[in-house]
């Protein structure tokens, strides 16, 4: 059997990778030492020119299945890692058949939970991570996707204006249905609860869990968060005909949660005395879509909300409420947003995404202004932020181009063996 690479846009550099070697034994030179979650399969990050891909060694049948599942999720706009390809027909140097490899693009600026929970976690951050996972799970369920293995290990987090945005990373057990039953959804939620508890208890057992997080309490909160979000997004409500404003109110509440309402059923009872409404099709990304339309910026939902707020205050401060919105947005982009994000020196761009930097600068302006008791000009804020805040942050993009040897953990077993 010959090596077979299936990919939408195959990169010829893939051919140079040592496919005849079991993934576990790949030379350091090919690898990028990025943090990972728990996994039963061997997973490694591999450097290709200009990008990093995640390689998972897995049974060929499962590799193809997961690849197709990720493509489907991608197509229907769900937040997940991007599938890159499948490598099949691997033969070892001894002629032995090797498992296939599933390739996904490394999600830039993504943080596995192990990194997040073991950093000095702020008390409310654990909750924010769980909230992000609840949003992800609700979105997937609305799309008819049953995950089957909801866990922190199978989720990646990106910073999102002080909160987090969650991405699905492991679709191995997933199934697509026309519509999920209550039982299927509850099963996923239960799996999430047990897995999250296990993962946090594991960190605690290793002395790696921030004091702020109590495994059982945190794991139980996924259930509440999921259910209340689901109810808000899909539940029906009934009110008297005199309260029509409640229709708009419901839509506004959904928008605030970051969802657009694409379809809403309204029905009256026989007497016509009460109205019942129920959202039928809701679509995540209310703010990020609006920002994208106005500015072309592709950012996370909360970042978008933050940026839109700033855009609104820009508009008000310039007294341009009656101007065309997209004109104002263009000016805001060139006069406010880009000057801030472009001032970040090249060597600091791997710390945080531009939109997150902008968010932090806005936060910093608030702190500085409060301390000074007056408004501080944005230029001053940026200078202070770049000097005193950003350099102290860890690189979160990926270690693209950085020498991984420097990051290698000492392998004591190898060092000792020659002496024996």
């Amino acid at each position: 059997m010959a090596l077979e690479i299936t990919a939408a846009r195959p990169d010829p550099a893939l051919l140079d990778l040592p496919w005849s070697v079991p993934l576990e034994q790949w030379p350091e030179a090919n690898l990028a030492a990025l943090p990972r979650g728990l996994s039963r399969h061997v997973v490694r990050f591999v450097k290709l020119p200009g990008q990093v891909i995640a390689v998972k060694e897995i049974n060929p049948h499962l590799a193809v299945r997961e690849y197709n599942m990720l493509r489907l999720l991608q197509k229907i706009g769900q937040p997940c890692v991007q599938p890159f390809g499948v490598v099949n027909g691997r033969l070892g140097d001894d002629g032995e058949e090797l498992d296939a490899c599933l390739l996904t693009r490394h999600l830039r600026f993504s943080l596995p939970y192990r990194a997040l929970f073991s950093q000095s976690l702020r008390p409310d951050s654990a909750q924010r991570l769980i909230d992000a996972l609840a949003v992800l799970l609700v979105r997937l369920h609305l799309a008819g996707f049953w995950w089957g293995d909801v866990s922190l290990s199978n989720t990646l987090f990106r910073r999102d204006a002080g909160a987090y945005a969650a991405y699905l990373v492991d679709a191995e057990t997933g199934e697509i249905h026309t519509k999920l039953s209550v039982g299927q959804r509850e099963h996923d939620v239960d799996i999430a609860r047990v897995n999250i508890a296990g993962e946090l208890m594991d960190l605690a057992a290793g002395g790696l869990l921030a004091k702020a997080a109590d495994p059982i309490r945190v794991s139980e909160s996924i259930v509440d968060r999921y259910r209340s979000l689901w109810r808000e997004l899909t539940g029906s409500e009934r009110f008297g005909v005199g309260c029509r404003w409640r229709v708009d109110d419901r839509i506004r509440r959904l928008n605030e949660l970051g969802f657009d309402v694409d379809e809403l059923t309204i029905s009256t009872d026989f007497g016509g005395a009460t109205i019942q409404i129920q959202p039928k099709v809701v679509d995540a990304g209310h703010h990020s879509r609006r920002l994208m339309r106005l500015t072309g910026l592709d950012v996370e939902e909360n970042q978008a909300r933050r940026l839109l707020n700033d855009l609104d205050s820009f508009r008000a401060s310039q007294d341009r409420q009656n101007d065309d919105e997209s004109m104002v947005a263009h000016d805001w982009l060139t006069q406010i947003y880009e000057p801030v994000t472009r001032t970040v020196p090249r060597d600091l761009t791997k710390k945080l995404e531009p939109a997150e930097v902008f968010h932090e600068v806005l936060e910093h302006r608030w702190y500085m202004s409060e301390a000074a008791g007056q408004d501080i000009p944005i230029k001053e804020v940026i200078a202070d932020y770049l000097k005193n805040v950003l350099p102290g942050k860890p690189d979160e993009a990926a270690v693209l181009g950085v020498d991984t040897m420097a990051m290698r953990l000492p392998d004591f077993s190898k060092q000792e063996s020659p002496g024996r």
Partner: protein
Amino acid sequence: MATVKFDNASRTYPGNDTPSVDRLTIDIADGEFLVLVGPSGCGKSTALRMLAGLEEVNVGDIWIGDRNVTDMSPKDRDVAMVFQNYALYPHMSVADNMGFALKIAGINKAEIAKRVADAAKILDLQDYLERKPKALSGGQRQRVAMGRAIVRNPQVFLMDEPLSNLDAKLRVQTRTQIASLQRRLGVTMVYVTHDQIEAMTMGDRVAVLKDGLLQQCDTPRRMYDHPDNVFVAGFIGSPAMNLFDVPVVDGGVKFGSIVHPIERSLLTGVGKEVTLGVRPEDLVIKMEGDGLPVTVEVVEELGADAYIYGSTTETAGKIKPIIVRVDGRTPPAKGTVVHLSPKGDHVHLFNNETGLRIG
């Protein structure tokens, strides 16, 4: 431990015209190992998921013990889907890996310790409870994962094709492990597979499904010796049963040049032809003489036995492939014509219109 009952239960997926599981009725005894088997798309996974609470039941009921669970959520049903993706936690001991989910459920320490110890005994993991998963072999790790399900003391274990991703050797090994584990635990098990060999070797009883309809639910022995219809006859057994339409004549049915005697009462009311089934090992082979003439095309030698693959044109003019098991020491040569007749009364007759068994 508990009985399980599918009571006229149906599931029609939204957008489908026909039910994927159609009025399924099965009574599963306490401690029984029941296998749901059938070709792809027959509805076996759907049936299992209805029992687990993952698929809505549109019509009918599902009972676990004396509780009607039809509308209960999965976690209230007291069933465990085993071999789900269970992660092992590197910093936690084997005991904690097995027992942590009980801690979340609020069960006290002493009870957890007891259940973990019991499960470890059954799984042969007593000496490893304080170790970290890293220090275990692959098979031991798999058993820790099973332990996670066992300590919950579920009433029923459910498994859906748990072995489909293993290679052939590991598959046989794990098959035995699961079967013996189930016997030791004495727990009720419902197991889904498309592999009839797996079904026949593991199940106390086997339920064969086709197009959402239960075809037969019986012990492996009974299923093999007494298939209720043509579908089951052809599905169970490897190599498959030989099936062909034969003319009904006075005193029996015609089998090549001979008349195979059949009790007259059985053949009243059937048409001109019936479907006759005979397993490869139930054919007597003669080099010449009476019977069904068959040309030997391939001889597969397996040591003690050999299979001959041939074909006959004597069946209503159509060429019919036939498989016969013969003594491995004296198989007929390729190209020869042999004459077959059924051994004693080892024939199965089916109505060739309804497919139902006659007698």
